């Protein structure tokens, strides 16, 4: 194993957290602009304009778009040929998230479940959330960072349907969940849907669904069709930007899926707000880092 400098991982964990909070991905910006063009209600258009101004101010002043710095999530893809020590990388993700909070500095949002004491470093027992995956034939370490705010995360919901409920139950569940969430998740954002797997996997799939660039369709044509159907249904509700009425209620519905048990039919919804924040770092074995979304 070559000598790899793990400070690079720590720095990337810090930089991606800050980048995610201050610099919205281009696909999100474009989706908001397309939504503005399609929106017909003047009051709703005014709301989009405020969003554009907020993005511009954050760009110019390098400040946070939204004050809720969220809980840090790192989705890691480790290349089979990357010279890695997983335990060390995990330690560096904790450090990086904490340093981002203290050194930027921004408000930490993590808290102890019983004492409710906030350590002001965005981490603590069990945090950050880290997902690991492994990619054959790659020699890079890919880090996708998502700060997840509470307004949208609190709207998460899942249900274990049975096979007899069919596909219709899943679609109805997603639509009803959207209507129930109203203005809370700062719409119009991304509706992440997980279908299949187990109770834990289905929610993770919904989370991975909100991590996709806006509007990137599922590779499975039948699933992609469901995404379009649900998007149209949600936009037809008229709930609109910030739940105040309008034509655009969601930027996109994304579905991720997995095989499930013969007796199960699980579905989960995880919503992402209009500032659909994420940032990516690709780390090469020679220590080079590329930042993106």
């Amino acid at each position, binding site marked *: 194993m070559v000598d790899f400098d793990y400070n690079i991982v720590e720095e990337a964990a810090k930089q991606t957290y800050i980048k995610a909070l201050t610099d919205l991905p281009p696909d999100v910006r474009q989706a908001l602009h397309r939504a503005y063009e399609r929106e017909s209600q003047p*009051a709703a258009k*005014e709301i989009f304009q*405020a969003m554009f101004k907020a993005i511009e101010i954050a760009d110019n002043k390098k400040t946070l778009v939204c*004050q809720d710095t969220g809980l840090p999530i790192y989705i890691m893809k480790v290349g089979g040929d990357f010279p890695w020590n997983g335990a060390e990388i995990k330690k560096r993700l904790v450090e990086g998230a904490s340093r981002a909070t203290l050194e930027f500095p921004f408000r930490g949002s993590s808290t102890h479940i019983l004492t409710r004491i906030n350590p002001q470093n965005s981490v603590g027992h069990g945090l950050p959330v880290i997902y690991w995956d492994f990619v054959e034939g790659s020699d890079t370490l890919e880090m996708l960072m998502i700060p997840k705010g509470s307004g949208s995360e609190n709207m998460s919901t899942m249900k274990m349907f049975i096979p007899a409920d069919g596909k219709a139950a899943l679609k*109805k569940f997603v639509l009803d969940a959207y209507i129930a969430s109203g203005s809370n998740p700062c719409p119009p954002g991304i509706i992440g849907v997980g279908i299949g797997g187990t109770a834990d996997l289905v929610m993770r799939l919904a989370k991975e669904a909100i991590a996709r660039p806006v509007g990137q369709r599922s590779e499975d044509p039948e699933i992609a069709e469901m995404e379009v159907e649900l998007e149209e249904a949600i936009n037809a509700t*008229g*709930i609109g*930007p910030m739940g*105040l009425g309008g034509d655009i209620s969601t930027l996109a519905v994304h579905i991720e899926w997995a095989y499930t048990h013969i007796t199960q039919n699980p579905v989960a919804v995880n919503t992402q707000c209009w500032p659909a924040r994420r940032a990516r770092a690709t780390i090469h074995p020679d220590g080079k880092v590329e930042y993106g979304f």
Partner: protein
Amino acid sequence: MATYHLQTPFSEQDMRQLKIGDIVFFDGTLFGIRDLTQIYIFDQNHEPPVSLAGFPIIHTAPSLRKVGDKWEKICVGTTTSTRMDRFTPPLIEKYGVRAVIGKGGQYQQSLDAMQKFGGVYLAIVGGAASLETELIEEVEEVFWEHLHPEALYKFRVKDFGPLTVAMDSHGGHRYFEVKAEAERRLPEIYQKLGVA
């Protein structure tokens, strides 16, 4: 939909002209309060050290920094108002607050107080804290510093908005209306989705 540019303090007439769906921008004084501030006032019986009469309040726990004895803004965002519903009627009736600014709206008791005394609920664009922070010209005073970040804040603002009138003094409630309309459309949406 009409767009209004107002100046604080607001008069009853300023508020009565507003209808749900209108857009408001304003200049002047804005008070920041949150859960704890209002528990301190109403449950623990502390009189606000400054008059709120005619002014708007915003639901926020601002991120500020104290330099010498001056407070500077870092990031000021807005939180969900539904949690603080029970404080709004006395804020309006007892302290003369004219406008409540937040996200998500409030319930019937707040709406009734707005109707009775001439007040409104103004919905801010959630998640746009960078814009909100920019529109605050100065943190003029922080009262009850020991409660920070849930103290009582006096901000001076310019062109603060856009704010959507979401509850008005005529019994109009934009969130209720939008929800009722969604429910009215629902059977048709279900049918198209093949889930009816």
